[in-house]
């Protein structure tokens, strides 16, 4: 049996986590959604879970979203797509996202439409 693909969401805000998870599940992706509450935990989980897509918040206590993304990308043999999802859109942040190796950068809106579009554009 083919394993379901896995999504990992890294965000320190419980509300955002739940909403993002709902949005992804409602959008009908055939995937299991996992969550991590901070960057360090997220990086560890990437090693174990081998998710396809990781969604990372920018502002988190401990290592921020860009550092988290860099760390995930620097681990060899892990072929993940990282989307940085932020509350504030900003060209400098978009540049940082790119520099950290992110594959996507999008804004958090109330229904996470931008995030869903971004994920869809990757498949």
């Amino acid at each position, binding site marked *: 049996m083919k394993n379901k693909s896995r999504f990992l969401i890294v965000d320190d805000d419980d509300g955002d986590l739940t909403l993002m998870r709902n949005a992804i599940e409602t959008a009908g992706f055939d995937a299991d959604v996992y969550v991590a509450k901070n960057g360090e935990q997220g990086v560890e989980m990437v090693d174990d879970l081998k998710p396809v897509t990781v969604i990372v918040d920018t502002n988190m206590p401990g290592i921020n979203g860009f550092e988290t993304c860099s760390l995930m*990308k620097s681990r060899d043999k892990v072929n993940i797509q990282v989307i940085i999802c*932020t509350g504030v*859109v900003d060209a400098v942040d*978009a540049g940082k996202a790119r520099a950290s190796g992110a594959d*996507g*950068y999008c804004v958090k809106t109330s229904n996470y439409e931008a995030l869903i579009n971004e994920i869809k554009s990757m498949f």
Partner: protein
Amino acid sequence: MKIKQPRILVIEDNKCDRDLLLHILNSLETECVVECVNSGRIGVEHLRKESFDLVILDLSMQKFDGFQVLKDIRDAKDKAFPVLLVSSFTNKEDKVQGLELGATDCINKPYIIEEVRARVQIQLKLRQILKDVQWASEKTNAGIKMLYKELDKKNKQLQEFDRLKDEFLGNVSHELRTPLTIIRESISQIVDGLIGDVPEKQKQYLSRALANIDRLKNIIDNLLDISKIEKGRVELYKEKVDLVALIKDICADFQTKAAAQNLELRYELPEDEVYVLIDMEKTIQVFTNLIGNALKFTKKGNITISLKEWEDFVQCEVADTGMGIAAEHLPQLFNKFKQFSRTHSPGEKGTGLGLTIAKSIVELHGGNIHVESREGKGTTFIFTLPKYCQRRLVHEENIDYRR
């Protein structure tokens, strides 16, 4: 996903040069995908179909005019890719011509391996930077667009809530009015002795109840008025009115109240009649609201109502010598439910709708209203009303005043 490896297209018909280039490109710091073609035509076709991050073009091929190939590849879909020209450049002008035709850089043959490597590396780096900037700007624009969309949606929701609130207010006021009228009528009959004799003491209490019912009715009427105005359901019944006489009448009604507060209520009016085309009841409401406010907020001095005539309109002023309004509050003065600390005694509070209603009525008449005020010196409300004239009467039949 790792950032995609850069793709390089080599257009070169000399096998030795091609092999040497391949060797150099394979030893670059950045891992690349290299494609080689030995004809200008095939190269151009490739570029129309796929995108490359760098093109290395031999200017001196045997069967192809290098310059023509350069022109052709500049017509490709994605024109941003850099083009490196390679040639022995025996003719010095070729370099200039090549650069003018859109080449990015030139490399002399025979190759100096280190130079080729460095120049290619620079072009790949610049290309990567350009792509990153484009990526960031696209993502930022998409994000901003999304936020605008969201804002727009929220805005529409708010407008809908606002509409619902107004509707609710209108309905509730309407529902409150009917029972209140019955209560008022019943008490009024008792006070008037229609039901039987009432002792003086009870009469006093009931009269106080009546006065407060009237206050409540006034508030509800204001709410209903504002609700009608907001729904655009107000119609003006315009007629020819002598404004001088009207102002005198209105002032007469307020004289007792002014005297009770030791205030002088006076007017400065032209001697002759001034005819305006107005809805009389609604205009009285404007004056009543403004004079009522002036009385409320003036402790000593006077209230002056004056009238000036202009060609097409008249300008009315209601000026008081009261406490005035702070400058920062002036812009919101006509907003619904706004009340400012002008009120000293809590008992003086109204609904905060008087000025909103006054403004709406003036504007429905095609006029405008504004306020001038200095704290501690007094406040003057100035508004305009249309003059009566035959021409206007004909013209106005085509105007819909319900906004």
